[in-house]
């Protein structure tokens, strides 16, 4: 019995050790190039790259930009948890990085650590997500405007001049910024122009749930001619349900399909004419960030704190192969 206890103890120690080891390597422990050489040190705190295709593209973009060749000494750490992210931030402040780039998991709880950063002379740039903290605590934030993404898509839909608008609306996880922005635009315009919302349900970003929802709409014999899915996965699930029921979709067909995020496979569907529209959620913030850092290094002041990125919407009839390559994530 005692033997087993000891064994269990040993096993848990090993596990703990492994966890610490992995944290250590994630945190990036190189202290060599602190000051002296010309490299600009950057600490980047991001969400887990596995979170979504968007995040993977975002992480890859940052990794490709902040390299030694481009004059940066960058350290990366990833977590979906706010407390862990704050720990990473404290570590970077101790390391005296020049810039701290932050995509916060949660909007709250950042005040004190950002004050520490300010006192230590670390300049903070937010990307992708904003936080609830005083504007003086960070230099700039580079974000997407989710409301505008929705508005662009709805504007496009309006310009299609369909004879009737019977819409199946597939929502993301309720309360997320992307869901609120993309739903808001549709709900508003639908009320103004008396568009008929046949069904409005959350599929929680999941293709399979989207498929079930659209299936149930079809089974109920409800007529619809637009699928407004708030991400590509859900649009894909919806299209699978349409295929099952032999309902045609895409350019010049019975049902208009709208998706978001511009995954590469989604843009390929668009190019093939199976979908009609895909709205971009731009994950490529690094060029904007580099711009800001350049300006700050030269001692210039920034014209505005919040920088909203350009975001495109692609129409199946006008999209080119070059677009698929360039904007597909």
């Amino acid at each position, binding site marked *: 019995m005692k033997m087993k206890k000891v064994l*269990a103890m040993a096993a848990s120690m090993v596990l703990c050790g492994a966890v610490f080891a992995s944290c250590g390597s994630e945190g990036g422990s190189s202290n060599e190039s602190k000051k002296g050489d010309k490299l600009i040190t950057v600490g980047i705190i991001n969400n*887990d790259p*596995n979170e*979504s295709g968007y995040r993977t593209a975002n992480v890859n973009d940052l990794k490709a930009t902040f390299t030694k060749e481009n004059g940066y000494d960058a350290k990366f750490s990833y977590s979906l948890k706010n407390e862990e992210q704050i720990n990473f931030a404290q570590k970077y402040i101790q390391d005296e990085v020049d810039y701290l780039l932050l995509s916060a998991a949660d909007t709250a709880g950042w005040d004190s650590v950002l004050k520490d950063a300010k006192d230590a002379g670390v300049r903070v740039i937010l990307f992708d997500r904003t936080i609830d903290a005083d504007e003086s605590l960070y230099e700039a934030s580079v974000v997407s405007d989710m409301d505008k993404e929705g508005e662009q898509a709805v504007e496009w839909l309006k310009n299609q001049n369909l004879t009737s608008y019977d819409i199946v609306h597939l929502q993301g996880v309720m309360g997320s910024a992307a869901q609120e922005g993309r739903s808001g635009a549709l709900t508003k315009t639908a009320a103004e122009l008396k568009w008929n919302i046949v069904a409005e349900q*959350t599929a929680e970003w999941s293709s*399979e749930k989207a498929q079930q929802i659209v299936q149930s709409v079809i*089974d109920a014999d409800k007529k619809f001619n637009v699928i407004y899915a708030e991400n590509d996965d859900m649009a894909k699930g919806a299209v*699978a349900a349409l295929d099952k029921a032999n309902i045609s979709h895409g350019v010049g067909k019975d049902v208009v399909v709208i998706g978001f995020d511009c995954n590469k496979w989604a843009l390929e569907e668009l190019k093939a004419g199976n979908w009609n529209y895909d709205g971009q959620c731009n994950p490529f913030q690094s060029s904007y960030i580099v711009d800001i850092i350049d300006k700050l290094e030269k001692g210039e002041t920034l014209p505005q704190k919040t920088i909203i990125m350009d975001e495109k919407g692609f129409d199946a009839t006008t999209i080119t192969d070059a677009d698929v390559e360039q904007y597909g994530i």
Partner: protein
Amino acid sequence: MNPTSKSNTAGSIITAMFRKQIFIPLAALLILAVFNFIMDPSFFKVTFGHNSNGDPILSGNIISIIDYGSELAILAIGMTLVTAASRGQDISVGAAIAIGGSVVLRVLCGTNSRPDEIQAPIIVAFLVCCLVTMACGAFNGILVSVFKIQPMVATLILFTAGRSIAAWINNNELPEVRDKTFSYFGGLIPGIPIPTPFFIAIACFILIFLVLKFTTLGLYVQSVGINEQTSRLNGLNPAFIKFITYVILGLCVAVAGLIKVSRLRTINYSVVAKDIEMDAILAVALGGNALGGGKFNISASILGAYVIQFLTTTLYKFQVQSDALPAYKAVVVIALVVLSAPIVREKIASLFKRIRPERAELKT
């Protein structure tokens, strides 16, 4: 035979029915069915048509239920055994499905994430997937049986790490299988209008019933769950039996994973089979199985799984508002779970006895 004794037997049948474990999921199914029938009889309509490939297909809510409920039903088999033997639940099945599905795609796609042709036979991909998910099960099983860690804590490790491992298996790419035959497992086999997942589920049920009938697995699992010490004294090896239930669950996960990735011939690591572990545990609970281990009834769990899918489809059909969806589900689930609690069932049964006290006396 006078009329009193006749109704007496009827009364005792009702009492006995309430005591039967399978009564609760059956009753829940019946209530949902009756509710749907009253609200809108067209719920049960099944239509025959053709899909965009020209293959025949049946569609309707009932077909959706037996289609989408199948993975959950398959998982419920393994989860019931795990619950009975180890007196705890495996919360890593969703993550394990992501791993298994990822392995299937990896083997089929090879190094290129979107090949035009599959790189290995599907059966090979499935067998590799079985090995990997059974290894995951074995990992959990060893933690639980040898190191005596609480099942929920032991499986928490894989629950946390699983989806990252799944993404890592495919280098974080989103592979897509273009070969049409791969979609047979989660879709339709041309010519057969009923979704394949249902047939796969039936095959799994038959298999497990044969195993339980012709081996002593069921008896051993039950006795280990009821009293480990006594089982040991009777010559059983409780650690091995617990271990084997986790491996069986791993096998169930492999089948469910194959169906999941086959549906759309691709995978999304963060949302595939999300929260399915909770539904699987719920299916076991709805089946009237004690979550504290011991006696179990697999058919009740399977029925419980289809009840959950019936509920989901019903909520979709009635277009419950998105923000309120979880609340509706929670209310129904609480009602069902409370009803299925042994203490409540005993109360109801004794209530029936009290209503007909004179007949109960007659009997004695």
